[in-house]
């Protein structure tokens, strides 16, 4: 992906997906009354670092999904779904894998005997997060395509206006 327009699309879609995911989680936690408890267990600096890491993972996953063309490119829906599932799985697995790696290092430094248990937990957690991430990736692929569809109708380009006027005449 060499042109800057594609990087622009990756940046916008990646950050849209991240913000949407974060807001859905926040609203759900707030309405269920669990937000206070969830935030209390996460310090500010670790929370910001975790958010930054997730932002990086989501943008990287979107880059991977769109590396051969943006949402407007004609391609088989099956390709988009498979790539979105793969991108979501990598982001989910990368998130839990990264957290487990950092936490695991801290645990193993103080207790080397727990290395096997930490590795096992990280593997199981990473696989589970990968499966959830794949599902979330497909859901967001559908959302992104829907947003593109709405955008094309909210702000028709000259080509679309030409097509509409020629079709109606």
């Amino acid at each position, binding site marked *: 992906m060499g042109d800057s327009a594609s990087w622009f699309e990756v940046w916008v879609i990646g950050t849209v997906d991240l913000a949407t995911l974060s*807001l859905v989680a926040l609203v759900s936690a707030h309405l269920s009354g669990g937000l206070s408890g969830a935030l209390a267990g996460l310090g500010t600096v670790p929370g910001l670092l975790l958010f930054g890491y997730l932002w990086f993972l989501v943008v990287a996953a979107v880059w991977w999904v769109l590396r051969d063309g943006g949402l407007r490119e004609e391609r088989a829906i099956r390709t988009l779904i498979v790539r979105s599932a793969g991108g979501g799985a990598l982001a989910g697995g990368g998130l839990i894998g990264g957290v487990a790696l950092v936490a695991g290092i801290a645990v193993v430094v103080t207790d080397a005997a727990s290395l096997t248990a930490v590795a096992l937990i990280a593997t199981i957690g990473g696989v589970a997060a990968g499966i959830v991430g794949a599902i979330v990736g497909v859901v967001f692929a559908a959302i992104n395509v829907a947003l593109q569809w709405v955008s094309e109708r909210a702000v028709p380009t000259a*080509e679309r206006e030409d097509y509409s006027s020629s079709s109606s005449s």
Partner: protein
Amino acid sequence: MSSSLHLVVRSIHVLGMAIALGGSVLAWQLLGSDDQDPIPSLRRFEWLFWGAIGLLVATGVGNLGTLGPPGPSTSWGAVLTAKLLVVFALVVGSAVRSLAVLRLQDRDRAASDHAHARLRTLYAGTAWSLVLVVALAEVLAHG
């Protein structure tokens, strides 16, 4: 959290909102003038806008963690719910707008006046939505 760290987080939050709101108003006004092709400037702003949105969400969660989120059944909790829903709508609406700026940028020919008028409406909607978010944030901050 130490007070200095809290101050840094809140400062980033306020600066992020200043970039998003100030830039949206400028883009809205830019699309109303015929002086130049506005798309390159809009595209530069969109990079900044989404960076600001990411920082606003991150530091907003940090502020909630520091101040303690209100319960969902309280009046402050209802205001927080309203704020989060307005931000959600803002993000979705801004995605529609940004994808339009991307498409117009990709065209070799200048965008039509009709497309500019639609974009101008979307930037105005963004700016007013951000004003509403600021008002709700003030209610939350001062009770």
